[in-house]
C-alpha cells in the first residue's frame, strides 16, 4: 500500500502503527470488546439482571491468557494455527476499512471483494480449527457453521451487488463512499433499503448472534465449534469475535449509510446497528439449521435479488 514504490523507515513505522494500533488491532479490539460489553449489559437489563461491569470482556481475555492450553490429539498444527488466521484477517479488514473511512483516497484496487473474502475468513478459520479437534460435538458445530456460511453468503453478495450497481459498477470502497457523499446514502432508495434489510440479517448470522447462533448453540452442542479450545487460542477466537463485532457493522455502514462519516455520526450509526442486533438477539429463539437455510434462501435472497433488479432500473 506504499505509494511511489519506495519505503522509508518512517513510512514503515506508520504502516505498523496503522495495522497494530489505530485504526487496526488495538483500537478495533477495544471498540469490539466494549461493544460486546454493551451487548451483555443491555441483554442483562432486558432480562432483569444486573449485568457485568464495563471491564468484564477485557478481564475475560486476560484471564484466558493465563489458562492452560489443552490440545486434543489430532492435528495439532491446524488446531493451534487457525485462530491466528481468523484474527489476522479480521485485523486486516479493521485496519484497512478504518483507513478508508479516515480518507477514501486510501482505497485500493477492488478492495470490496478483498474485504468480503477477508470477512469470511474468521468463519473458515473456525471451521478448520474445530474440525481438527476431532470432537463429535465440534464436528456437528462445524457442519452447521458451513451450512450457515452457505446460507448467508448468497443474499449478502446480492445485496453488495446492489450497492455496486448503484455506484456505477465500482468495486472500490473509496468511490462507493464518495458516490454516497454526492448522492446521499444508498439506504435512501428502494433498492438500497431492501438490500440494507437483507444485510442486517446476514450480519446477524455472520456474527453468530441470537436467532442464528446455531454453530455454538450452548444448550445443544455445548459451544459446538469452540468446545475443545482453551486458554490462548480461545482468547484469540474471542478477540476475533470482538473485532468482527466492530468490523462487520462498520462494513455495512460504509456500504449503506456512507453519506457522512464524521466521528459523531459514525458512532451513532454504529450504536444503532448494535441496538438492532441486540434487539433481534433477545426477542427470538434460536432457529434450527435447516430453518436457517430455508429462511436465507427464500426471503432474503429473493429480496436481495429484487433489490438488484430495482437498482438496475435506477430506483
Amino acid at each position, binding site marked *: 500500500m506504499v505509494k511511489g514504490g519506495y519505503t522509508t523507515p518512517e513510512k514503515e513505522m506508520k504502516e505498523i502503527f496503522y495495522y497494530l494500533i489505530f485504526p487496526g488491532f488495538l483500537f478495533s479490539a477495544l471498540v469490539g470488546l466494549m461493544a460486546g460489553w454493551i451487548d451483555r449489559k443491555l*441483554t442483562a437489563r*432486558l*432480562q*432483569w*439482571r444486573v449485568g457485568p461491569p464495563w471491564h468484564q470482556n477485557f478481564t475475560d481475555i486476560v484471564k484466558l491468557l493465563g489458562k492452560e492450553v489443552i490440545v486434543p490429539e489430532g492435528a495439532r498444527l491446524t488446531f493451534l494455527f487457525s485462530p491466528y488466521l481468523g484474527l489476522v484477517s479480521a485485523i486486516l479488514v479493521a485496519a484497512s476499512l478504518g483507513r478508508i473511512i479516515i480518507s477514501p483516497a486510501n482505497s485500493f484496487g477492488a478492495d470490496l471483494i478483498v474485504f468480503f473474502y477477508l470477512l469470511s475468513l474468521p468463519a473458515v478459520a473456525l471451521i478448520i480449527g474445530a474440525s481438527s479437534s476431532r470432537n*463429535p*460435538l465440534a*464436528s*456437528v458445530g462445524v*457442519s*452447521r457453521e458451513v451450512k450457515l456460511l452457505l446460507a448467508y453468503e448468497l443474499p449478502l453478495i446480492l445485496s453488495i451487488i446492489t450497492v455496486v450497481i448503484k455506484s456505477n459498477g465500482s468495486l472500490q470502497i473509496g468511490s462507493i463512499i464518495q458516490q454516497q457523499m454526492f448522492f446521499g446514502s444508498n439506504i435512501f432508495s428502494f433498492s438500497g433499503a431492501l438490500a440494507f434489510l437483507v444485510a442486517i440479517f446476514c450480519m446477524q448470522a455472520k456474527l453468530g448472534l*441470537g*436467532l442464528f*447462533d*446455531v454453530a455454538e*448453540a*450452548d*444448550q*445443544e*452442542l*455445548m459451544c459446538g465449534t469452540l468446545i475443545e479450545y482453551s486458554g490462548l487460542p480461545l482468547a484469540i477466537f474471542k478477540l476475533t469475535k470482538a473485532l468482527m463485532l466492530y468490523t462487520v457493522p462498520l462494513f455495512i455502514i460504509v456500504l449503506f449509510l456512507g453519506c457522512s462519516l464524521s466521528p459523531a455520526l459514525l458512532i451513532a450509526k454504529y450504536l444503532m446497528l448494535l441496538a438492532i442486533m441486540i434487539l433481534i438477539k*433477545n*426477542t*427470538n*429463539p*434460536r*432457529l*434450527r*439449521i*435447516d*430453518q436457517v437455510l430455508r429462511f436465507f434462501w427464500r426471503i432474503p435472497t429473493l429480496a436481495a435479488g429484487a433489490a438488484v433488479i430495482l437498482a438496475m432500473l435506477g430506483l
Partner: protein
Amino acid sequence: MSHKIIVPIGPYHPLQEEPEYFQLYVEGERVVDIDIIIGYNHRGIEKLSESKHFDQVPFLVERICGICSSSHPYAYVLAVENILGGEATIVPERALYIRTIIDELQRIHSHLLWLGLAGHFIGYNTIWMWAWKYREPVLDCFEMVTGNRNNYAMFKVGGVRRDIKDEDIPVLKKMLDELSPAVDLFRGAIMDDPVIKMRLKGVGVLTRQQVIDWCVVGPTARASGVNIDIRRDDPYGVIERLDWNVILEKEGDIFCKTVVRILELYESISIIRQSLNKIPKGAPIDAEVKDIPAGEGIGRVEAPRGECFHYIKSDGTNRPIRHKIRSPSFMNVASDKVSAVGGTISDATLTLAAVDPCYCCTERVAVIRKTDNHKVMNGWDLIKLSQEKTLRLKEVYYGRPE
C-alpha cells in the same frame, strides 16, 4: 452412505441440570436412535424410608425432588391415610384446603420453572429470565407460609404442620392477582410468536396411541389428547368441590405441551383463589394419629409432571415395611425413545426437555452388564484404589514407609 456418530448429552451437560446420560446416535444432524442411561444419582430412598418411622418419612420423600416437594409427601400421607380409612375421614377441613393450596402453588412454580427452562433450551434467554422473575413472588409466598422456598415440610399424616395465617391470605391473593397478567404476557409471547411456532410445532410428537403404549402421564399425556388427571379421576383434598377444567390439546407436539402448561397455570390460580375464599376459619389443622394398623395403602397425586404414586405396606409397627414410589418422570423420560428419534439434534434436545424431566425422581438402581472386558468395582474397591494411590504418592514424596 450413512455414518453414525454418537452425540453425548450428559452425564454433565448444560441442557440437563442433573446427571443423566442420553446417547444420541446421529447421522448428519438426524437422530436415528437414542439410549437413555440412568442411575447416576441413585440414593436408595425407598430402602431408607423403611428405616424411618411414619412421621419422619415425609421429610425424606420431599427430598426426592426439590421441585415436586409437596407432591411426594402428599402422595405418601395419602397412602398412609388410605390404611387409616381415607383422607376425607380423618383430616380436618381446614387442613384439606391448606393441602390443596400448597399443592397448586407448587404446580404454578414448577410450570413457571419449566417455561423458563424451555425458553433457555430454544435459545430464548429472555423468556427464561422473565419466567423465573415472575416465579420469584410464588417462592416468596411459599417462604412466608411454610418457611421455605422449597421442601416445605407441610405434610403430616392426619393434617398439615403449619397453618396459613389470616394475614397471609391477602398477600397470597395479591400475588395471584399480579401473576395473572404475567401469565397473559407469556401466553402472548409464546403462543403468538411465529418463530417459536416454527421451532416447536410438529416437533417431538407423541401420538395418542404412543402415549398409551408408553404409559406417559401428566401434561405430556394431556398434550396428546389423553384425558387423564388424578385430581379429577381420583380426587384428593378439596379439589372436587372447586370449579376447574382439565386442559387438553390434540397434536402432542412440544408446542401443545407448552400450551397445556401455560393454560394449567390459569387453572391453578383459579383453584387457589377459590380455596382461599372458601377456607374455614379457625378450625384445627391436624388430627391426632396414634398407630398405623397393619395393611396396605396407595396414594396418588397429580404432580406438576404427572401421576405420582406411593405404596405403603405397614405391619402395625411404627415404620413402613415396604414403600414403593413411582414418579411421573420415570414414565415420561422413557417416551423420548419414540419422540426424539427422527428429528434433528436441535429438536431432540428440546424433546428431551419437553417432558419436564426430573431425574431425581427417575433414578433407579443401575444394573451393570458384566462382560469379559469390563471389571466391575464397588465402593470398597474404589476406596482401596484410592488408598493404594495415596501410598504411591507417599512413596514418591517421603520415600518408602517403614
